[in-house]
């Protein structure tokens, strides 16, 4: 348990664990209400760091990859690649060089970010506190900005490919002439389809955020239980492994599905 300064209450402990290390253009470090141009330094640091780790690992294997008998690491990496490739092939039937690498990046990156959740909640923030960093949130996917940063990027790709494949007219038609193909229904259709369209990135981002945030919060709550955390921490961590992998997979799969829908003509 963190035992740092001041009067430590449960709520302040939780509050502390849920506060990001921020830096804003206007107010500098950890300013209150610093406006839009604020960066969650910890989220970005860990997410970029894990992304680099992922790319470094895969790139180093890719550079050394042989056609002959692969090593153990190459086997593992190829298993992941083939898993993603299979899912992409099953769902996405067009020709697009972006989808598969995109799916791989999403899957592995989100998985790595989610896995940070399994590190006991006090270790890294505690260490950071020891060297004078007041707040540190280590799981980037418990940051709404991170999940929405990704889901909105996917959203941009959805719109980009819809327009690229079907043209602006096709995009507008999709929004206005479905599900009721009659001019009188255009306003109704537009409302329905806009909600459908906007629900994609929102649900994508919120699902990942919600699952991981809840998981993290539960870890924090368990950590508050004193000795009781010992029997509780492990089952929740084991259960959480499932959530971690599942959420990464769902994010990847939905991205593929959305993009394949963007490519399909009705």
């Amino acid at each position: 348990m963190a035992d740092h300064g001041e009067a430590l209450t449960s709520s302040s402990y939780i509050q502390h664990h849920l506060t990001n290390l921020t830096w804003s253009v206007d107010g500098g470090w950890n300013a209150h209400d610093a406006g839009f141009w604020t960066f969650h330094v910890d989220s970005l640091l860990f997410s970029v760091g894990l992304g680099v780790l992922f790319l470094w690992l895969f790139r180093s294997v890719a550079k050394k990859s042989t056609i002959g008998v692969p090593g153990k690491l190459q086997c593992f990496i190829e298993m992941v690649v083939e898993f993603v490739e299979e899912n992409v092939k099953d769902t996405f039937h067009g020709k697009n060089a972006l989808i598969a690498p995109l799916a791989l990046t999403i899957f592995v990156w989100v998985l790595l970010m989610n896995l940070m959740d399994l590190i006991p909640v006090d270790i890294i923030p505690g260490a950071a506190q020891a060297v004078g960093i007041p707040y540190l949130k280590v799981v980037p996917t418990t940051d709404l900005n991170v999940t929405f940063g990704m889901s909105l990027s996917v959203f941009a790709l959805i719109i980009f490919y819809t327009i690229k494949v079907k043209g602006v007219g096709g995009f507008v038609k999709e929004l206005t002439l479905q599900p009721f193909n009659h001019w009188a229904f255009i306003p109704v259709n537009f409302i329905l389809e806009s909600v459908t369209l906007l629900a994609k990135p929102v649900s994508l981002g919120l699902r990942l955020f919600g699952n991981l945030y809840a998981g993290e919060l539960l870890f924090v709550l368990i950590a508050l239980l004193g000795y009781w955390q010992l029997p509780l921490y492990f089952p929740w961590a084991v259960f959480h492994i499932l959530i971690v992998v599942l959420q990464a997979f769902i994010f990847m799969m939905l991205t593929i599905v959305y993009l394949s829908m963007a490519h399909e003509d009705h």
Partner: protein
Amino acid sequence: MNINATLLGQAIAFAVFVWFCMKYVWPPLLGAIEERQKKIADGLTQAERAGKDLELAQAKSTDKLKEAKAQAAEIVEQANKRRAQIVEEAKAEGETERQKIITQGEAEVEAERNRAREELRQQVSALAIAGAEKIIKRSIDKEANSDIIDKLVAEL
């Protein structure tokens, strides 16, 4: 929890990572996998072909073996025939030789007999002459009667 510029940072990082993955990670990895798949498929077809080849070669070798056996049997038969022929020839030759030797022997025997008979005749004639001489010595001159004796000898 508020939405702020972190979102942009994350989106930019996401774009860069995806670009890097698309450019430098995905193609070599999938390329290696696909190439290996091709290699394995090639190997399998080759193995299959080799199996077929082996089968073919085995069939061929069996055929060849059969042929060789047949040929060997033929040769042996031919040799047997030839042997019989040679034996037959030798037999015939031996027979003629034997015949020749026999006739020769017979001729020789005949000649010998003739000679012996001649000799015997001469001896008998000489004996007869001697006998006659002894008889005649008492009565007649030898010269006067020699022509008779000669005639006698010739008749003998």
